């Protein structure tokens, strides 16, 4: 028993063993830091890429909206009253005189009503942009995973 105690004492007191312990701890800390830095770098790069892509898409949307507005205005110019009158004249149409017009009642015909420019469905249902994995706790995560796997298993 005494010998064992002496050996343990010697090992603990050996300088190279103390140094190895410190080196081991340092390396462990280094590895942990490298892991955290790696994860951080990865997330940052992905976020940056997503941000750049968002900016590019937003710029693209803006450009498309401007081009659409431009085209709509051009189209309106092409079908303007004056343009249509000129086109009708080139096709040898003549304006109808009141004497040329006969009113014919067509059953079921509805005269032109005012326009409705509302666009139903333009606002899609709001969905969360941030995934739940980024907001829920570990406990919530595991509970949700359990629930989803259980519900998947219930399906025929």
């Amino acid at each position, binding site marked *: 028993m005494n010998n064992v105690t002496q050996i343990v004492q010697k090992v603990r007191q050996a300088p190279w063993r103390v140094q190895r312990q410190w080196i081991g701890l340092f390396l462990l800390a280094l590895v942990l830091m490298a892991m955290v830095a790696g994860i951080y770098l990865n997330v940052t790069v992905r976020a940056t890429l997503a941000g750049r892509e968002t900016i590019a898409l937003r710029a693209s949307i803006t450009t498309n909206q401007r081009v659409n507005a431009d085209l709509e205005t051009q189209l309106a110019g092409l079908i303007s009253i004056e343009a249509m009158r000129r086109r009708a004249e080139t096709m040898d149409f003549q304006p109808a005189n*009141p004497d040329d017009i006969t009113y014919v009642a067509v059953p079921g015909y509805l005269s*032109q009503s005012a*326009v409705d420019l509302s666009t139903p469905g333009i606002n899609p249902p709001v969905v969360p942009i941030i995934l739940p994995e980024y907001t829920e706790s570990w406990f919530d995560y595991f509970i949700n995973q359990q629930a989803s796997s259980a519900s998947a298993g219930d399906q025929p």
Partner: protein
Amino acid sequence: MKRHPHAWRYLSAAFIMAVVGIAILVQIVRIQNSPEVAGVINQGNYIWKDFYPPRGEIYDRHGNLLAGNKTVYEIGLDLTAKPDMPTIMLALQMTGLNLTDINYRISQVPDNAQYIVLDDFISADKADTLMTLQKAAHGDPTGKNLDAIYFKAHYGRSYPENDLASNVLGFVTEDNHGYLGIEEKYDNILAGIPVRMLVPADPRRATEYPTIPPGQTIILTIDREIQAAVEKILDQALENTRASSGTIVVMDPHTGEILAMSSTPRLNLNDYQNVKTVFPGETPFNRAISQAYEPGSVAKILTMAGALDSGVVKPETVTFVPEFIVVGGFKIFNWDGGAWGYQDMTGCLANSLNVCLAWVSDREMGSASFYSYMQRFGLGHATGIDLAQETSGRLKLPGDSDWTPVELGTNSYGQGVSVTPIQMVMAASALANDGQMVFPHVLYAQIQDGKQSNTKTQIVGSPISASTAHTISEMLANSLEIESSGALVPGYRLAGKTGTAQIPLPGGGYDQSNVNTSFIGWGPVDDPRFIVYVWLEKPQTNKAASVVAAPIFKQVVEKLVVLLDVPPDAVRLQMIGR
């Protein structure tokens, strides 16, 4: 404790690293606050810039675009690219840009500027021409290229119909402010909310601009087809009569929706810079709302409506109409200066007898009742129509310092009182709409977040009863038929009244050589779909409204019955009978 023999090395390394770190921090702070950086910001490389959202579009009631947006360009010059100025100026000249303005801008640029704006709101055609030249000159071995020119696309206002409904629409200047008409009245909702940011003057350095919600789109009550037809008729009328100006308003008497509103002159809104040339001096932009005048005999319909409603006369009431009547110590004569003998009230309207109407207002109604009805019809007050720069006209009342008793007589036939065409239209809506006077408006609907909210009909008041409204409509329809008016349209029964009015001079008295001619009417009488008001100022070919204005009313109605799908009375009654 014994110190490690090489500890000084570690301490030295730590000290050096700490010094280097502190030096880096000091340098960062120094650069941030250095006068050089502040100078760069102050000397034009950074500017405060307003970012305007796309302006809301304006449609007519059937979805035809009246005011939209188009792409225009800001053309700039990258001074760091060492531009070859003679080549660039030659290219700008070939494109048709104004070199005087561009030279002035270049002369104002600070020495260390990196980017300057040469011109803005350049049309896509001109920008395309310049881009083509730039491509052609790219890579020129002598360095005479146009690579330093930079194009930045943005929105500009565009009016595809040019001058159609220009008096209603108004226009937008380059600073995105609406002026006159709808553009001014609804500027706050059309323009959206601009954002102001400090950005590099060189647009290539600004990587992200703010996303701003666009302005709201609006739909007008104006019907493009009716508006075009009315403008064409008005232009032709001015040419035929050599009148100095003209105005036509078409309104739905049940809803107050303005279907067409035209006045002269008109402006091509895409060249709004010419506004001072087209509207010199005090010329109103839209006479229908901004020019008050003495309407003359068209106002007799309001006098007669008030008299019928108050019960002092009936259509069959007969009175002797002499050569003149004395009111407030002054003689009032008929339009022809003659006596007309015994006349019933329909005859008084049909023959437009001033003496008869003065008798009604002065002898039968009295000033309290007469002016009460005129006020109920909205005379003397702006209608509140949703167009910029409406004026209210003037109805002098007993008790006003400049009111004289004779005006009780003259006001009965539309002299001594000033109104705008839109006021007369609103007042007449009570006669055409079962006694209910409607609020005239131009906004049909506005679109927000994809949802359309329509403007509701507003009843401004009920100055007369429904039975009175029917009675006066019948009287006016009969009077048109009695006089075989030039306003009659075959197949349709219409109610209406002419007005030939003297024009007051600024110094007092009346213009002896010019008159205002008007016509107001509605139809079909038993179910009115439209009110039409015609006003020609100072026609030269003839001075009688029955000759000048009534045929214009007829032309407008002939178009309206087609464009509004109004069947002839006989067909409509057959359809109802089924």
